[in-house]
């Protein structure tokens, strides 16, 4: 469509800000990764030593595993629930409106707030266990955040609580961009609702799904705030994702150089996964 050229100034401000707040700090971070530094006074050039260290670091690998476990759980649980919620409450109407607002309210809360509330709920004498007792299900009581077996899953629940609102809106947006005529013509042809959904609705939603999936994946791979507030990486590092481990090394041990090196690796990892995800969805995009 070579009908015009859009002036450069349309994109200039965005690029300028982006350079200052993202690109330049990344370059500085990369620079740090070549040093043994504490970010304050100690700066010893070590070249690629930080990177070779990563391969020998057992905790790096276990943190990566935790990160993958967490992301997989979050993305699938989260996206599925978001889609279901979008399908349930997409139509106009006061009741739907109320439900949508309800689902979206946790998104509005600050992360500290939501995490704090769930910390209270999950505590051994907290509301969750109290309710289990009252329902006669006392044997299900567990240290939700203090038992290595359950801690990560408990955090996923908090993530779902806080995140599905956004997914729901994105999916709703995608649903509503499908022109009504397509449904009409399909109905005339006598299609059943189930196949309607899978053959028409879902494919047309792919741009929306792609963006929801990709951003969710990216955010979950980097995640560390929830772990910081809810479990501080414990118990026994069962919730120490790579993002958390990096932050811990940077702020606790003050090995800023090593942390930067790991962050660079994380960035490459995220970029690779995103690239392939993007390709996957682009190839499935359908235009009627």
């Amino acid at each position, binding site marked *: 469509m070579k009908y015009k050229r859009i002036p450069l100034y349309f994109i200039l*401000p965005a690029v300028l800000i982006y350079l200052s707040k993202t690109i330049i700090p990344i370059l500085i971070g990369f620079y740090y990764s070549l040093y043994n530094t504490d*970010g304050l006074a100690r700066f010893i050039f070590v070249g690629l030593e930080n990177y070779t260290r990563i391969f020998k670091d057992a905790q790096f690998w276990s943190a990566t595993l935790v990160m993958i476990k967490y992301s997989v759980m979050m993305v699938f649980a989260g996206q599925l629930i978001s889609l279901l919620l979008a399908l349930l409450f997409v139509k106009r109407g006061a009741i739907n409106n109320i439900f949508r607002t309800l689902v979206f309210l946790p998104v509005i809360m600050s992360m500290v707030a939501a995490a704090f509330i769930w910390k209270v709920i999950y*505590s051994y004498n907290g509301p969750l266990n109290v309710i289990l007792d009252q329902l006669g299900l006392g044997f299900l009581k567990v240290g939700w955040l*203090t038992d*290595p077996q359950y801690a990560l899953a408990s955090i996923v629940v908090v993530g779902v609580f806080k995140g599905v609102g956004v997914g729901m809106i994105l999916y709703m947006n995608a649903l509503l961009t499908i022109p009504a005529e397509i449904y009409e013509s399909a109905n005339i042809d006598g299609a059943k609702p189930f196949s309607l959904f899978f053959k028409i609705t879902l494919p047309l939603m792919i741009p929306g799904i792609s963006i929801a999936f990709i951003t969710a994946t990216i955010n979950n791979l980097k995640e560390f705030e929830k772990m910081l507030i809810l479990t501080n990486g414990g*118990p*026994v590092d069962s919730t120490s994702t790579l993002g958390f481990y990096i932050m811990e090394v940077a702020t*606790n041990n003050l090995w800023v150089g090593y942390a930067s090196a790991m962050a660079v690796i994380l960035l490459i990892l995220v970029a690779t996964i995103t690239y392939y995800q993007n390709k996957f969805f682009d190839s499935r995009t359908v235009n009627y």
Partner: protein
Amino acid sequence: MKRQSLTALIFVLMLSILAACGGNGGSNESGEPAKTPAATQKSSEAVVKEDPAQMSGEISWLVFETPNYTTDFYKKVIANFNAKYPNIKVKTELFAAGDRKAQMNAMYASGQLPDVMIDAVDSLATIDGALLDLPADLTDQFMEQGLIKFNDKIRYLPTTTQIKMGVYYNKDKFDKYGLSEPKNWDEFTNIMKTLKDNGEIPIVTGGPDKPWLTGSLPSTVVDLQLSEKYGDTTGIYKAIYDGELKFTDEAIANPAKEWLQLVEKGYYHPGTLSFTMAQMNDAFMHGDAAMLVNGIWLAPILDGAELPFQAGWFPVPTKNSADKYILTYNGAMGISGKTKYPEQALAFLRFFYEDKETYGMYLKADGVSGALKENPTYESGPYTSMIYEKVKGLTAISGNISDSKYIRPKGVSTDVMYQNLFAGAKLDDELHKIQKAYDDGLKMEGRK
């Protein structure tokens, strides 16, 4: 055309507004970094002001809040100060994070260090110029073991000495089952067994954001036992630094194992690992758990509360005895090296310690004793006094590392290890992990 210029106009307007307000960022505080370090004593400003009323300026004071140190408390301190120095304004700032050391580093890195800080400046002490070197006539007033030199200078001062962990117990429950204070570890375990057999919850601890809550008992036991061979904490960490003592040695592994037995036998309150300090104290003070390991700062709280029972205290028992306790110098109060008001900050620092009423007030609130050679005394409540009476007959083991050479590398925490053990990690693995972290840390920091 019209639209384009409208958008551009809005953009330009925004920029001009920003440019105009660029100077005053929000409220006025000394957040703006001084362009030149004010650490050197300028000769133009008289080194010793004759008249306190003449000194003027504004300093910020970073403090932390606890049930004993409240906003009102700090206000009183400042009011006392202003009675002598009416023209120096002091504004308090709160530590905004649970991890004070991390926040200290972050503030320094972004040039936002307040003028005076009541704690945690020790993490900056190794960086030349980060903190103001303190004058000898001030530091000479302190007990030597509480001070630590960096490049031959003192950069921060301890605020208190504290009787660290001890076992608070429910006397009523002990009497009910004919129990008395234990003289050694075995008696201690038997007490717990008796309590549990009778359906009581022997002991409670805490966890989440404060690993020291979980580590309180095990680390005290381990350190007290090690002190039999190495003297005090400095001795212990010197041995570790020299490689003489390793975390994996039996000397550490055995007491840790004994403590783990308590966990495995179920003597701890169910769900205790998820308790905050508030919940932990609450469990004890409501009579749910019979014992609790906490520091001296619990005593004033007990004094002020209306307990439904009589409480007692005994020192943490070791294998063979129960006659030692750990005494630490706490706090790390210092002045930023880049403060714009060094004279005033120093005056404030001096006043805090030298004014008997103010320093006394500070000590009384937490039930602790002072770090000076001559400390103000105060009247304390029944429980606080009881504990101080008791420790007169016990041996104090210093809990501080007095040589900066032996300080643990950052990130090496025995408390976190004990938390992991409590949650089910294997002892051998954890001990190996912490030894490795220690060795790596020394290497990374270029210390060995």
